[in-house]
């Protein structure tokens, strides 16, 4: 075998490897023999780091000397819900500095939940001559000044996507920094920006970039300006509108409608803040081509929603508010036979009473009518085991099922039982389930089901559920493919954690907050498992000031080959092998 492998010249092997893009496969290739390892590492162009603290920039650079595209993720998922205090970490600065020196030909940077500053952005814009793609998903720490640097210096920029990042709006003039001879923009997503961008600059930019395919505007772009933009970019495939409201005027309407009709490639629509229903028919001409429709900011009533969605026979992805009601979901189930993904968000999540007739029935209808349904995110206020069992039997091809019953601990509203058997049916029937979020009243039994059946499960989110450590133990010992586990407000303590310590090294990360884990257990885990970082996040002051048996506030455990990190703030405690507590 060795001889055969070496009988091919390196160039041939490299060419063969270039057809293999998937990380797992490339990892496998690199273990065949030294020669393949060497060739593979020199030809790896794309690196994905799921946890920026799992490895150091230098280690990545040493192994892969010629990377063109990097993706990094920082904070844990629950940071989206304000559970991770500000200042926890996720700084991209060390990565940018290291890559600026090592990867002059870097083309793409994709970040998720990381902190990036204007200095970092400026360094990016000046260090990488062929820089093409910048995607900042749920990031923070920068302002429009940093964007100005990117616009001014990245002559080959193709994508600038600020997806839901928190940007400090200093001015809308940053857009003017794109040079007049810059024409290579393919994708621009500024939907998260609060301030008005310079509209004339935007118009000119859109007009001179013939390859522009994706344009997601921010709310400040008024509706009456949208038609002009569309006429300059009829080749658009994905559009996010600004505020979708204006005084109802026939000339504005017909202008808009005509502009939409001219966009023959448009497949994805989003935006729709402040919708004036009278303007919705302007998009009717293109509905039949739509595959993605994001109406999750559109506060419009069910009849208007039905009229719109009813025309989208080719819809694959629908995001909508619960204003759609069960009746609206019935209509979707009847019209959108190609639906793959449904997300229903709550319009009034903090109200104690339901404000719209949206119940489990809507989801049941969808599961019956949409045979390709794979991914669900559903907020509602009532659920029953019967409904869950029906959904499970209808849709065994489901891969992502996230159900949020708004009130914690809500039982089956028909039988008043816990929802264990309902979720049990989901994991039993949906054998390819990769992601699951639980809610409602749940005992340890649901975790027994999950541990028994959810063999492909990679990510599990749990809140206000379970009764004892047995629940956690079922999951840690049963779910073979588990990578990410996030738990809040559950009575899980030390036992299951310590008994399954080895499992934690096979996962990317574990988050536990408001559970019953003690500092003593954390110290033990930190001492015994050198390849885990055990971070105790506690804003009440040092855990040593409380008895060792007192539950800690938040725990974040992740595997790493980089050791403890150096940028921990004062409220994060970690334990190293010397069993001395280290403060940063």
């Amino acid at each position, binding site marked *: 075998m060795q001889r055969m492998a070496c009988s091919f010249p390196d160039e041939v092997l490299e060419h063969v490897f270039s057809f293999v893009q998937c990380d797992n496969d490339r990892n496998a290739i690199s273990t065949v023999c030294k020669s393949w390892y060497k060739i593979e590492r020199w030809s790896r162009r794309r690196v994905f780091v799921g946890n920026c603290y799992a490895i150091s920039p230098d280690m990545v650079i040493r192994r892969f000397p010629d990377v063109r595209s990097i993706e990094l993720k920082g904070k844990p998922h629950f940071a989206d*819900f304000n*559970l991770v*205090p*500000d*200042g926890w970490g996720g700084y991209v600065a060390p990565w940018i500095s290291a890559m600026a020196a090592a990867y002059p030909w870097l083309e793409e940077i994709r970040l998720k939940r990381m902190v990036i500053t204007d200095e970092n952005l400026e360094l990016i814009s000046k260090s990488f001559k062929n820089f093409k793609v910048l995607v900042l998903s*749920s990031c923070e720490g920068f302002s429009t000044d940093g964007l100005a640097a990117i616009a001014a210096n990245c002559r080959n920029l193709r994508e600038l996507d600020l997806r*839901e990042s*928190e*940007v*400090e*709006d*200093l001015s809308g003039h940053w857009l003017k920094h794109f040079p007049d001879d810059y024409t290579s923009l393919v994708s621009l997503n500024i939907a*998260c*920006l*609060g*301030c008005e961008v310079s509209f004339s600059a935007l118009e000119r930019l859109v007009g001179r970039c013939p390859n522009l395919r994706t344009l997601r505007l921010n709310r400040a772009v*008024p509706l009456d300006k949208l038609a002009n933009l569309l006429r300059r970019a009829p080749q658009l495939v994905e559009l996010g509108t600004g505020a979708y*409201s204006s*005084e109802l005027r026939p000339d504005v309407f017909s202008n808009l409608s005509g502009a939409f009709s001219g966009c023959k490639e448009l497949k994805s629509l989003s935006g729709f*803040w*402040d*919708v004036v*229903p*009278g303007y919705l028919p302007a998009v009717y001409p293109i509905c039949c081509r739509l595959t993605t429709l994001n109406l999750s900011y559109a*506060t419009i*009533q069910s009849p208007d929603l039905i009229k719109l969605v009813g025309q989208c026979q080719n819809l694959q992805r629908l995001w909508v508010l619960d*204003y759609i009601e069960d009746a609206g979901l019935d209509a979707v189930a009847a019209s959108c036979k190609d639906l793959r993904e449904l997300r229903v968000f709550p319009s*009034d*999540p*903090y109200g*104690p009473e339901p404000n719209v007739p949206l119940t489990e029935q809507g989801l049941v209808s969808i599961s019956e009518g949409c045979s390709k349904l794979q991914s669900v995110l559903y*907020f509602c206020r009532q659920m029953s085991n019967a409904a869950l069992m029906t959904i499970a039997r209808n849709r065994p091809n489901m891969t992502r099922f996230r159900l949020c019953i708004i*009130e*914690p601990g809500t039982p089956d509203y028909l039988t*008043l*039982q816990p929802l264990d058997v309902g979720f049990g049916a989901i994991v039993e029937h949906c054998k390819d389930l990769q992601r699951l979020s639980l809610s409602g009243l749940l005992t*340890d039994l649901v975790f027994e089901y999950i541990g028994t059946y959810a063999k492909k499960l990679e990510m599990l*989110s749990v*809140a206000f559920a379970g*009764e004892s*450590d*047995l629940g956690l*133990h079922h999951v840690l*010992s049963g779910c073979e493919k588990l990578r990410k586990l996030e738990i809040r*407000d559950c*009575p*899980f303590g*030390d*036992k299951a954690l310590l008994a399954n310590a080895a499992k934690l090294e096979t996962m990317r990360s574990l988050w536990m907050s*408001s559970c*019953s884990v003690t500092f003593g*257990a954390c110290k033990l885990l930190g001492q015994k498992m050198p390849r885990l970082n055990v971070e105790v996040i506690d*804003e009440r002051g040092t855990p040593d000031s409380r*008895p*060792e*048996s*007192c*539950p800690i506030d938040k725990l974040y455990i992740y595997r790493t080959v980089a050791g403890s990190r150096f940028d921990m703030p*004062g*409220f994060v405690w970690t334990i190293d092998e010397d069993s001395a507590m280290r403060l940063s």
Partner: protein
Amino acid sequence: MGVVGGGAGAVSGGGGSSTSDASMSTVSKEDNPVLSSEDSSSCLDESELELGLGLSLGVGVGACKAQQGPRGGQYARILTAKDFPYVGSSTSASVSSSSSSSSSSSSSSLSRANVTAGTKRSADSVAAANGASQVVGWPPIRAYRMNSLVNQAKLPATEVFNSLIVKSRNSNPAVGKGTSNACVNANEKGQLRSSLFVKVNMDGIPIGRKVDLSSHRCYETLAQKLEDMFATSSTIMNSIRSGGEEHDMMVDAITPSKLLDGSSGFVLTYEDKEGDWMLVGDVPWGMFINSVRRLRIMRASEANGLAPRLEESNGGQRNKPI
């Protein structure tokens, strides 16, 4: 956050070092006293001891008991409609630490019944230090999404109403910016407030924090919270010590009034909707909440010239162009 049943036993037994080898196969439902209400109350006694020492948990014991209830005893019996008299009951069930429910049945009727009580109890145990009236981060909706929802008119809305909203918003682009996570539930019934996170920066500390203003009712608790927040950073201790006049000042000794009256060498300021920087504490709390965009703990030396309301801020601060 309630040390429940089996957890309590392991903890009090100091089983840290031995459990790593313990075989979990021996753990079964019988070992878990949670199911039996008798056992749960005996475990409560132990955990009572433990958590009685847990200071900042605040509600500590009460939360333990209260949380014990719904998760513990009632699984041993079928729940009936009697357990759920929540329809129409008031939302103000303040399940506080003073609740002395010792039996699981009484706490179950308290909690599981009342829709929001369950929420509040978790809120009490989770965010007692904040005094939050709601659970942090629940339901799991991103702040980005909440911002957008909040700043739109709720249904039913006519076109006229919507265009009026657009007009007013266009004239004030400050509304709806993403710098603060403002998720105020704009509801005429004056319902529960959701979270209102604003950024806080302190001079001399590069890393900012966020604080949930809706969990406070007055300036004192806010100032106390901020001091706690920034006291945990060692750099802050140095900056306070070096920046302050009083050499004998200890961080712990800073009372809320010191931050509010500037005697600690720092003053608390905020940026309002118009982009002006003002001293915190001059206007009624409600008015402050409605206009604050972010906070800054400023060195007292830089705060000269900062006056309530009318005066323009001095050159040290950044005014946002509107």
